[in-house]
């Protein structure tokens, strides 16, 4: 290599994810309804974003587009600067596994599995394989991170709401995702437990993880780095 071309150095870190002009139209029975129209949304590494909005304003819909549960009808989606707008489903599944961690209002824990097995679910998904001992170690680390390692062997029915939601957060963390998507994670919890859960989620951003928190609670929203409000299918 005798010659080298000067590349312009990118000073600004590439956004974790960037959505441009996202539109989602619901085509059910009757008139098609526009849920989201031309939404722009960006998250940088280590950044936390709160999304506020009335019920039915399209918050969950936006989150399901970000998390690749569903696809937009219009607009562009970049992840780490790569256009993934038209990614085939098989690769979307791989991205869900590697890049995202999901937390829901209902905890979605499997009743027949222990807390540890529920967390391990995110590791036993056909995307790669790690040995039993390695898996166990990863699971215990995630449970420790949310402060409930001592409940590893308990079934969900024996856990309180806050403990169950922390198991769900451990499940979201166990693969060390780049971004956490949380859809009203405190909606089913009392204020105190809700505060604890938000703290746990916010902690994850210290390691450079992005966080998108959908909430109705303004106190929780204020703890985020940025607050956005959805109204009539767009941010304002």
């Amino acid at each position, binding site marked *: 290599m005798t010659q080298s071309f000067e590349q312009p150095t990118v000073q600004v870190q590439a956004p974790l994810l960037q959505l441009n002009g996202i539109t989602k139209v619901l085509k059910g029975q009757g008139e098609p309804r526009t849920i989201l129209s031309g939404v722009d949304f960006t998250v940088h590494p280590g950044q936390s974003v709160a999304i506020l909005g009335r019920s039915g304003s399209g918050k969950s819909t936006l989150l399901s587009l970000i998390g690749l*549960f*569903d696809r937009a009808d219009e607009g562009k989606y970049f992840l780490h600067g790569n256009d993934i707008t038209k990614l085939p489903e098989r690769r979307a*599944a791989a991205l869900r596994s*590697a890049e995202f961690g*999901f937390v829901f209002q209902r905890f*979605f824990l499997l009743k027949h599995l222990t807390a540890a097995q529920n967390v391990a679910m995110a590791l036993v998904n056909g995307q790669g*394989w790690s040995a039993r001992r390695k898996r166990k170690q990863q699971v215990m680390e995630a449970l420790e991170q949310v402060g409930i390692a001592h409940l590893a062997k308990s079934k969900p029915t024996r856990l309180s709401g806050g403990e169950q939601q922390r198991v769900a957060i451990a499940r979201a963390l166990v693969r060390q995702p780049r971004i956490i998507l949380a859809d009203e994670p405190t909606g089913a919890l009392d204020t105190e437990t809700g505060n604890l859960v938000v703290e746990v989620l916010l902690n994850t951003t210290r390691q450079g993880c992005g966080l998108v928190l959908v909430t109705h609670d303004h106190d929780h929203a204020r703890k985020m780095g940025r607050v956005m409000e959805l109204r009539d299918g767009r941010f304002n």
Partner: protein
Amino acid sequence: MLSGKFRSALVIGGQGIRARKLRTFLSMVSLFLGVLAVVAVQAGSEIAERAMLTDVELQSGKDGTIMGYVPGEKGAPGIVESTLKGRTDAVAMISSRAIIGEPGVRPINEGGMPFEYANRGGDYSGPMVYCDANGTCTEQKKEERKPDGQAIEVSMVALTGDIRPFKPFRSVSGTWLDFGTAPSLAPRIVLNEEAAKGLKQYRVPGEMMIDGATHHVSPQIIGVVQDGSSQPRVYMRLDELRTWMPAAAATTEVDRFRGGGTQLELYLQPGTDDLQQLIKAKLTGAGLEQNQMHFQTVNSKERMESQLKIMRLIFLGMAFLVLLIGVAGILNVGLATVGERVEEFALRRAVGMSRLLLAGIVLAETLLTGLLTAALAIGAGVGGLQVALMMFGSRFPSLQGTAFPWEAGVAGVIAGLVAGVLGGLIPAIRAARIPIATVMRA
């Protein structure tokens, strides 16, 4: 090295089955009956076919054998005997009547019928009329009725050689005739089971009177065989018969009319056309007509198989219906399970499982259930056969030593697989189509 997908599937499938033991068990029950029906039909027809085939071989000879029927007239027995002397590729059977027991009495089973039908009622035969080739009919005087006595009538079969290569007689006790030694002066005979039964049942004295023989002899019974005949028969070497009956009796016209007299049956191996021609030529030379000699190839198996095929199809159709009910059962349970597990499946996809793997796991669960059920059903089939043989084996001797036919096992495995695929495919497709966004919304 197993792939991560496969290992994941094993872990998840195991968890799923453990979490729903009762459900798995219930779906197995319906399928079990279906697969068992297929196994039973397959095994039953297979065993029936084998049993029938051995009986058919006993009665009409092995397939491919060329059988010849020749009337025992005009010196035919002697001609055939001398032609076949020392040959192993052809054997002649010369049958005539013989009475074993008290001399000068009416045998218990007059006419040589099976003992089951012996002594049932009186003499129903009317006057006998015999018409010759020219159309002249004469009434035959009835033989004077002899007094009843301790004697049985048998069909006496004299052999020029070993018949077993053509008809696979099974030894019941004692030995078979030895054609390798010099003819014995004390005639040796082998009974079939019916004749042995008659001798035992009626305690007849050991004297034997043969049609055409001038004096009684005391036979030496050396064995009993199963020959597939329901009529009493005794087998002996033709050359030993000759020692007290120098020439086989010529069949009279009357005998022929009554279906009696001396009968000649020839068994030739395939590819002995020259021998067949030679015998025909010699017999024609002796004055027999061509149309009195019948030669034909035994192909009973083919005929029997076409009959069995229809029966088998009917039963297989019935088994298929039962299997269909089993499939419907497993499908029903599978669909209900998917409905119940919608959240689990959506969650698994949310944390990164691909559609294909999810569908694969759902399919694999029913497939495993199907295969396991098939294994159980085959086991039940094998066990059932053992029990059935233990209970009924003695009544059906041809079934003795029957092993579970592997075809039935294969049919069972295929049925289990098919049921697993049919019952699991629709739930698998359903599972793959679950929309994550709809299920996980809050």
